[in-house]
């Protein structure tokens, strides 16, 4: 079976700095795959290029067999992949529930005209959006806070909310950019459980993360990046003992 996401010779230059260097990566459907690497390895750039937030310098990204490089972010999301952000990008003035309801945007159709006149099908659609959004909140355990303003939640809960909002787009591939950053031990453990539960919903997960315990616990497959290149790949056990990886993290002896 062809991988769900493929990058071929993906390259991104920022001026003279090569953030991604002919990167070949494959993400197989149904797995939890992690990308790790030291700071500045190009992990977040990888996410930004795949999600269309910044353009690639050269190379292609294929999603589900189709080339998505060069498409605007909303088109890429429409094909069935979305992401979260390392530095949270919540809609802070909206309620928790409304944040998730925005996630349902692609799964609904109300336009300016039909919404202004609140046509009968809009009323039905609104109810569907609300009910489904509450289900997503229940899945992540935020349903008790649904009417709170998103910006008032504690940091850890905001991370979870961003995850719920991304899930509401009903993605085939979910890209999580350092979801454990800023979380305490307990919250990180809860997150690991949540990621596994999401994976069981037939959602493929691509995870960029610094927290090695989390990566080793949840991943089926790990790719290691350093200076824009992939330097190793394999199951967590292999990676743990890989020479090149140790060298990249700890430096030369």
């Amino acid at each position, binding site marked *: 079976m062809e991988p769900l996401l493929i990058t071929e010779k993906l390259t991104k230059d920022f001026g003279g700095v090569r953030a991604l260097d002919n990167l070949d990566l494959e993400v197989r459907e149904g797995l939890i795959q992690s990308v790790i690497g030291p700071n500045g390895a190009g992990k977040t750039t990888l996410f930004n290029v795949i*999600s*269309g*937030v910044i353009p690639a310098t050269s190379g292609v990204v294929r999603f589900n067999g189709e080339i998505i490089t060069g498409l*605007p*972010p*909303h088109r*890429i*999301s*429409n094909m069935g992949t*979305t*992401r979260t*952000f390392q530095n949270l*990008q*919540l*809609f*802070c*003035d*909206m309620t928790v529930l*409304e944040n998730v*309801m*925005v*996630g*349902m*945007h*692609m799964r*609904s*159709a*109300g*336009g*300016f005209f039909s*919404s*202004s*006149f*609140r046509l009968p099908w*809009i009323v039905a*659609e*609104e109810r569907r*959006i609300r009910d489904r959004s509450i289900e997503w909140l229940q899945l992540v355990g935020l349903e008790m806070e649904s009417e709170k303003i998103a910006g008032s939640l504690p940091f850890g809960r905001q991370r979870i909310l961003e995850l719920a*909002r*991304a899930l509401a*787009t009903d993605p085939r591939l979910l890209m999580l950019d350092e979801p454990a950053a800023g979380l305490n031990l307990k919250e990180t453990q809860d997150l690991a459980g949540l990621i596994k539960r999401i994976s069981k919903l037939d959602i493929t997960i691509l995870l960029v993360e610094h927290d090695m315990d989390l990566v080793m616990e949840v991943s089926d497959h790990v790719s290691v990046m350093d200076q824009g290149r992939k330097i190793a790949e394999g199951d967590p056990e292999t990676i743990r003992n890989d020479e090149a990886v140790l060298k990249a993290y700890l430096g030369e002896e």
Partner: protein
Amino acid sequence: MTFRSLLRSPYTGFIFFAVLLLLIPLAVTNEYYLNVLIIIGINSIIVMGLDLLMGYTGQISLGHAAFYGIGAYISGVLSAKWGVPPLMGLLLALVGVSIIAFTVGNPTLRLHGHYLAMATLGFGIIVFIFFQELDFLTGGPSGLVGIEAMTLFGITFDSDRSYYYLVSIVMLIILLLSINLVNSRVGRALRAIHGSEIAANVLGVKISRYKNGIFVISALYAAVAGWLYAHYITFISPSSFGFMFSIKLVTMVVIGSLGSLWGAIFGAALLTSLPEFLTVVEDYETVAFGIILMSVMIFMPRGLLRGIEDLVIKIFARISDRSEVQEKINE
């Protein structure tokens, strides 16, 4: 439906407001007050549209007086020069303004912050010059006379009282449409763009579509207001649609409370009527006006509506605190 959810429904407030608006003429018979109320109604239509753009979507426009003017002039010129009936004039004004708004909005809404402010400011000034210089159509700086009074479906609205009802009904319709819009998928997308464009985008919101859409809608609101104004005063001149009025509209949105339709109406009512009340201090009118605006922004930076909301909550909290203390003492 429970009492609680009825209370929280945005439509409850609408119904109370509608009843209030339609009852006001029973209490207010003074023609001058009715006249002020009519202008408040017209202004609040523009301000609601501008609030959808600024407060909800987070995009500034310093050129909205231009759309107000274009709406007024299209219907006004057609009426004064060729005797086109107002309803037809409204339709043509709406078509004209939506084309202009789309053409202007499409490139300018790619700009952000100060740059967008400058671009819309420039647009407003260009349109103002057109009003002045196309004098064979607009009558130039001295204005356009001979606009016919409002006649719709055979009814002529020539008294202040009848015009008050017309403006109120149009305003209520627009308010209802706006309430529907902000509580919908589209409204959430607009607020999402305000919160984080990049996050909205990766959730599948096509940013340009929503920015352009709301820009056109807010321009259309302004055009409707311009139409009501032209056929009420029956005389229009460029000075009503200049840069200063654009600024005044923005002030109304901000003073009222950004991102609240009720705030928009409140802001329009306050800033339209305040100069009328301030005539009691005669020469110091402008000074008093400025001081009031400054104090509102210093003491209620979230605008009057939210400021008062916060104040009420604070007072209630204090009262309940005090009664708790009292209970403890009693124990």
